[in-house]
């Protein structure tokens, strides 16, 4: 009987461990695209940390603003100094949850739609957001992607009127995180 109990405990622990798993990346990619009247501006950050807990659906993203790379150095300078004020607000974060966790089978390869809800902090302003994304489960990895819009004025990012035609009021954000399992 004792042996059976131990065996049951062991199986429970093992399966709990199997499901209570965390997947992370430290080189996730976030890019944004501004389709202004005069010019199109794109920047990419491939130093983004993201973690997903498959048992709770908790999802965290950590971004360093200074890691966004632009084609032109001057644009990067304006982005950091004038618009994002990255000396004052060096970090952007997202903390939230996958709300339709039961629709995702993390142990079966496939592509699943994910609803994500949480708080997004940009430029020192935190807003609650609800976005859609996809989770692709493949070869023990989770590839999370999403595309959504951010309206700059929501986050108190001020664009001077002189360049208002160069920068879109709403920018498109693309995220791609290829997350691998962490053993705990």
């Amino acid at each position, binding site marked *: 009987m004792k042996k059976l109990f131990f065996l049951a405990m062991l199986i429970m622990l093992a399966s709990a461990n199997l499901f209570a798993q*965390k997947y*992370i990346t*430290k*080189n996730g990619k976030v890019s944004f695209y501004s389709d202004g009247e005069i010019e199109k501006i794109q920047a990419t950050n*491939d*130093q983004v*940390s993201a*973690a997903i807990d498959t048992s709770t659906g908790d999802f*965290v993203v*950590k*971004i*360093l*603003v*200074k*890691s966004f790379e632009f084609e*032109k*150095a*001057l644009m*990067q300078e304006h982005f*950091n100094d004038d618009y994002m004020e*990255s*000396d004052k607000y*060096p*970090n952007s974060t997202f903390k939230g949850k996958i709300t339709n966790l039961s629709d995702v089978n993390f142990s079966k390869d496939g592509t699943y739609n994910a609803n994500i809800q949480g708080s997004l902090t940009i430029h020192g302003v935190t807003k609650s957001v609800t976005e859609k994304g996809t989770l692709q489960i493949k070869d023990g990895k989770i590839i999370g992607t999403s595309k959504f819009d951010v309206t700059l004025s929501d986050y108190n990012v001020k664009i001077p009127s002189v360049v208002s035609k160069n920068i879109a009021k709403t920018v498109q954000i693309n995220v791609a995180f290829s997350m691998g399992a*962490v053993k705990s």
Partner: protein
Amino acid sequence: MKKWMKISLAIVAVAIISSLAVYKFYINKPHKDIEHATPDFTLNSMKLYKEYTANKKHSDSLYNGKVIELSGKVDKIEVTDSMVIAVFVFSKGDFGDEGIRCTMLPKFNEDAKKIMPGTTVNVKGACSGFNDSDVILEKCSLIKD
């Protein structure tokens, strides 16, 4: 040639040259050359990490956006599709191993791949801050003594 013509030609020439100069040296100026920049700070990897974890705000005011030359023992070399990252590990947290992550300039990728874990190296790069798990250095080069 009449005097007014000479003057207007000169004005046009100056205008063209100065707008070209503005384009080249201002609008289209190159990204900062981190590899050849003189470091703003030279310090031990553990010291940088400890300072950041003890006081992020103060450390950001000192180091964020600056060129830093680090020395310390590399714990692992991570290779992704497009990047090689030298990692100094000091802690374990929600995001696995935590410490300092130095993304190499592509021209140093091959040399960085050859670094054996535990080797003491000097790495120079631009610090882009601390994301509450890792301190990030980018555009890194290996400094040979």
